[in-house]
């Protein structure tokens, strides 16, 4: 049959030569290759004891940052939710009451702020979109495995960074 693409190649199967029929040279060749691998250093990382180093650019679990005085930076503008390609972020905005100035930096704040970690693709677009530098993806934490689906919806209780960490030294790196 004429080949349509004209690129057909007929593979020629030559009969085996005497050395090939003996099989032994090829067998010894193969055995020496595997023996070399036997003594090679294994690249395996023994996971629970050893952990792979995350890169500086690694995008892991989200955090809602506080400012220098421990006030939440988020103003619930919703830009992160709009930017999110996976639609993982939902929030409810609320107005700051009198006497809550030490809690929230702006007059508007997020009453609830939820990220569904099953939807999230950790692309970091929320981080880019945030005008207040409130949401960040940490480079040293990952979302741990859990047994129930609703446990993967992270609320403010798990996202907002603890007060005592707000001014700690390692947090400086988030502030350019």
């Amino acid at each position: 049959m004429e080949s349509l693409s004209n690129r057909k190649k007929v593979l020629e199967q030559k009969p085996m030569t005497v050395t090939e029929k003996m099989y032994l040279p090829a067998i010894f060749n193969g055995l020496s290759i595997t023996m070399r691998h036997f003594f090679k250093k294994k690249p395996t990382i023994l996971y629970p004891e050893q952990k792979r180093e995350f890169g500086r650019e690694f995008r892991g679990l989200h955090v809602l940052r506080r400012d220098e005085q421990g006030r939440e930076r988020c103003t619930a503008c919703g830009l992160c939710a709009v930017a999110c390609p996976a639609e993982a972020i939902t929030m409810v905005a609320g107005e700051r009451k009198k006497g809550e100035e030490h809690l929230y930096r702006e007059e508007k704040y997020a009453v609830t702020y939820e990220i569904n970690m099953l939807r999230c693709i950790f692309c970091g677009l929320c981080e880019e979109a945030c005008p207040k530098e409130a949401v960040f993806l940490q480079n040293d934490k990952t979302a741990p495995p859990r047994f129930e689906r609703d446990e993967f919806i992270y609320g403010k209780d798990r996202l907002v960074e603890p007060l005592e960490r707000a001014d700690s030294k390692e947090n400086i790196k988030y502030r350019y």
Partner: protein
Amino acid sequence: MEIPALAIQALIILAIFGITLLIATYCTWAERRIAGFLQDRPGPNRVGPWGLGQPLADAVKLFFKEEFIPATANKWLFIAGPSLAMLTALMSSAVVPFGNTILSDEFGAIRIQGIEVNIGMLYIFGVVSLGVYGIMIGGWASNNKFSLLGAIRAASQNISYEIALGLSLIAVLMMTGTLSLREIALQQAEPLFGISGMNWNIFYQPLGFIIFLTCAFAETNRTPFDLPESEAELVGGYHTEYGSMKLGLYLFAEYVNIIVVSAVMSTLYFGGFNFPFQNEIGALLSSDPKVAHNIITVMGIGVFFLKIFAFIFFFMWVRWTLPRFRYDQLLNLGWKGLIPLSIINIILTGTAILLSEHFGW
């Protein structure tokens, strides 16, 4: 035989039995570990130090799995299959000489061997030829097309390679002039080029050894000849329908077969329990010839097991290196390659024996 001598013999048999099973258990661990190392990964290393508890964990798993017999299977033969495989595998270790004699004042010379028969080689050959029944019966009783294909492949493969195996043994027989494995091992204790315990048959029978080795791979159904259980085309071959400890027995029997074949190869070609400079070492350690003999015997047992381990390692090394043969290649190699080669080997050996007798070499 008196009662104490009989008791000692029973003890030796029990010890051989136990050690064989223990080594077979740890073969499963070694296989996976070696497979891992050859593929640049560590292999099972979680259960105990270096993963040494893995065989126990596997055994517990297999014992507690559901005992399942397919509805259309032949119930009795389905159970008889793995039992026969295990029986024939264990039977052959009876005549292998694991060590020389231990001289004692009370009991005389105690042989480190199950039973000494003067047809040891024929016994091994007979038991090996029976090994295929376990696979065939199990494969047929499963009432499954894949199992039946595996069983039939096993039958024709074993029959084909038994011939070459027997013919390569005949060359050794002609050289040594005895069928007893102990005699063959003792003959190899002679000095070669002034080194005692180095008169190994491998130096006289290299071609015969390669033929025997190839046939040993085929008889134990190991890669590159593991066509009866080739998982790529036959699901699991003869043990497709098997689960729990019945499957475990099949896998176990394979390892026991490897151990026995390794032991036979060490005895026939690699000097058995003899090791280089054994007389000098014995004379160095003790001036009393009796004590020296016993020391050499004990060391010889260790050396023999080292040889077995080396062969087991080789079996595993080959398994994780070579791909499987195609079935026509397998039969062509057996009938057109190995059988003529082994006949040539017999002729060569006969000629060499005649010449050496004629010229008094």
